[in-house]
């Protein structure tokens, strides 16, 4: 890391109606550093990176880049100054080849020189030590590979400052390691990286410095080596918050759900039992078949062979509605695509899966019952929304997730499947969701929790099943919980 400043922000302020999204934020980024940016949802991270990448203009303040001063940037000037961003939602053309995406917008003249383009893309991948076919269509790639294409695209444009917004969110553990290697290489070649992540452990592995934002205010920049997760969390939330997990208070009861030799949807010979009052964690890498398992139990995908038993009785589940009627609830992985109705209001969302219990004369939705149901969950889950009539798309990620939880819990399920319950949500909401899951288990509900976060799996589960390539490769009891053991099983090393 050199000590030259590549980008400095001075007094950046951005107002939105009724909110100050950023208030007098000053920050400096040095050449060749990995600079992590952290804060709870709503802290102003996204606004800040949008200002840097030129997507929005600040109301006040100065941006100084490469010695030039700007009141605001637009995307073109940002790119001219070597600013590139890899967002959570990729910006790739699915139907084009990898190489065409990497060299997008570069070709001069009428005809495309495919040979030159492939060579260039290949060279970038070689430098990154990545093995992806440059002629493959982007739509045929895995999420991790698509992200690498995004990074390669930035490199091909000679990025000097690369913004990475939650880059590890779609990746499995081993893929994250690979991404880190690439980040380290970029850093070595003098690229500055602004790294945004909710996963604190990553910051300690990859970043040189870390800046904390809270409620639109700049709080502090620290050398990563001289701080610790506890300090960062307390800076982020403004209060001491231990990454502690709620203690078990209930007891484990009879078997609620049992799978015997279940196959289908890429799953092979899955057998396990889940008991009342138990939180059973499901670990595994992306693509191990965890979500597939959840969808199969829930009737969203077809079971080919094997049997499912609820309270000891064999059941047939063809559709999600059958599962719900049998007392199974699912909190899906992707809350925006699968969980909530973004254009509808909070109360509408909470009641939609549970309308049958809210009817009068068997047809009409009773507004009073609906309101009291929504109010009940608003209080129980501490959903932060101005009113219950607010559209869900206007809520923060954590609160959207709470709405999805409320929707599922409203059906009064005895068996609840959580698929990545805390993905992409802030620390405060995470804690609340952990307590909620534990409370549900203590009330005697049987919980199946799929998660990619080690801390969460180890901290919350009573028992962990590890999956690899469509099979269960191992079961770990509470006494034997360890990251190493989980990773071994998840990588198919046994």
């Amino acid at each position, binding site marked *: 890391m050199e000590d030259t400043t590549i980008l400095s922000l001075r007094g950046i302020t951005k107002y*939105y*109606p*009724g*909110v100050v*999204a950023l208030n007098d934020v000053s920050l400096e980024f040095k050449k060749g550093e990995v600079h992590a940016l952290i*804060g709870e*949802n*709503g*802290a*102003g*991270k*996204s*606004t800040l990176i*949008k200002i840097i990448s030129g997507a929005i203009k600040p109301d006040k303040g100065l941006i100084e880049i490469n010695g030039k001063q700007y009141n605001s940037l637009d995307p073109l000037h940002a790119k001219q100054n070597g600013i590139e961003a890899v967002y959570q939602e990729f910006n790739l053309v699915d139907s084009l080849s990898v190489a065409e995406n990497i060299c997008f917008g570069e070709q001069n003249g009428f005809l495309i020189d495919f040979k030159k383009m492939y060579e260039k893309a290949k060279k970038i991948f070689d430098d990154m030590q990545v093995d992806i076919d440059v002629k493959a269509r982007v739509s045929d790639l895995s999420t991790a590979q698509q992200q690498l294409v995004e990074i390669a695209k930035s490199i091909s444009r000679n990025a000097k400052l690369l913004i990475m917004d939650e880059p590890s969110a779609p990746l499995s553990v081993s893929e994250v390691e690979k991404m880190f290697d690439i980040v380290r290489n970029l850093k070595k070649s003098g690229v500055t990286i602004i790294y945004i992540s909710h996963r604190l452990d990553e910051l300690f592995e990859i970043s040189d410095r870390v800046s904390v934002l809270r409620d639109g205010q700049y709080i502090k920049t620290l050398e990563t080596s001289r701080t610790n997760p506890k300090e960062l969390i307390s800076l982020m939330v403004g209060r001491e918050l231990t990454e502690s997990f709620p203690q078990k208070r209930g007891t484990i009861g009879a078997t609620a759900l049992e799978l015997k030799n279940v196959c289908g949807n890429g799953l092979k010979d899955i057998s396990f039992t889940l008991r009342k009052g138990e939180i059973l964690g499901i670990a595994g890498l992306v693509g191990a078949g965890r979500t597939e398992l959840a969808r199969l139990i*829930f009737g*969203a995908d077809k079971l080919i062979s094997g049997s499912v038993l609820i309270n000891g009785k064999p059941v047939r589940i063809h*559709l*999600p*509605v059958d*599962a*719900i*009627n049998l007392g199974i609830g*699912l909190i*899906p992985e992707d809350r925006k*695509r*699968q*969980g*909530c*109705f*973004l*254009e*509808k209001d909070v109360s*509408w969302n909470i*009641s*939609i*899966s549970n*309308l*049958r219990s*809210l*009817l009068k004369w068997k*047809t*009409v*939705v009773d507004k009073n019952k609906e309101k009291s149901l929504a109010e009940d969950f608003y209080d129980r889950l501490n959903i932060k929304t101005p009113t219950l009539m607010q*559209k869900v*798309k*206007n*809520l*923060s990620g954590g609160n959207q997730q709470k709405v999805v939880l409320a*929707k599922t819990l409203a*059906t009064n399920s005895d068996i609840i499947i959580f698929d990545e319950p805390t993905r992409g949500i802030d620390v405060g909401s995470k804690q609340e969701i952990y307590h909620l899951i534990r409370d549900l288990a203590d009330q005697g509900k049987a919980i199946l929790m799929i998660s990619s976060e080690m801390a969460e799996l180890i901290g919350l589960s009573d028992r962990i099943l590890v999956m690899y390539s469509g099979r269960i490769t191992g079961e770990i009891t509470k006494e034997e919980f360890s990251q190493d053991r989980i990773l071994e099983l998840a990588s198919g090393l046994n």
Partner: protein
Amino acid sequence: MKNGLIKTVINKYAIIFVLFGLVLLFSLLSPYFFTLQNLTNVFVQQSYVIIATIGLSFVMISGGMDLSIGYQMSLVGVVTAILMKNIGLPVPLSILLGLLLGVALGLTNGLAAITLKVHPLIVTLGTMTVYQGISYIASNQSVILNLPPSYKAIGQGYIGGIIPISVILMIIVSIVASFILSKTSFGRYVYALGSNEEAAHLGGINVNKIKLIIFAINGLFAAIASMILFARTGSAASSTGPGTEFSAMTSAVLGGISFKGGEGKVWGIIVGVLILGVLGNGMQLVGLNTYAQFIVKGLVLLAAVGFDTYQKASAQKASIKESTN
């Protein structure tokens, strides 16, 4: 934020202001426009379009589309006429069978869309052509004249000498549809499908069943619209009906039914149809020729959609601002 409130009201009810504006404009331009006789005419002329559009809007709100309603109407009208005139069934029985045929045609669309797993737009592009063929074969390309008077009353009769039967039917259908969409659980499911089908499926809604019912309702409403239209015409030809799908789509979009689904209300649809109806009627009274009317109608649609998109974009911006990060 009083300013904001006024703005919201204007945005939300913009089309009502447009309708009143048009009524005012034509009242000034033509002495014949704002008369009881003429306004009744507009309602009578548009009653069948309103019913067909409401049926279509069930499909559109759920995220689908039906191009075939025009030929559904053609086929239902022709078959009903054959049952009454050529086979000699009693009028009420013929009407009942005609309505059942409408439901069957709608169900066919729904089943095809579900089993082929193709967007209903494409499916109904196919069934539209099929229904067209069947209608012309059934009618033998000829016009069935002199439909029975008790049948014609649906389109031409008045109750108490003042209120047209077609308008009463339109009001009943509107009230029933509005009740279904805004009050019942089924109505919620219609919106849920259009807002996020995947979430609806995982949320325990039997998506295929709801789709079938939606298409059946659409078929039934198209059949009711067909009865009114054929009864008003007094004779049955296969060329009666087609074209309604485009008036219906235009009105639906004007009335705030988004092509993406998940949005829309019955009052908006009625206002949408009336805007086009008043435009047509008014322009005729003012003396604009038919082709000039097409141009104006087209421009009004583009303006309405443009306004809607602009409004959504600014709403989007506002909400992005609110929920930034």
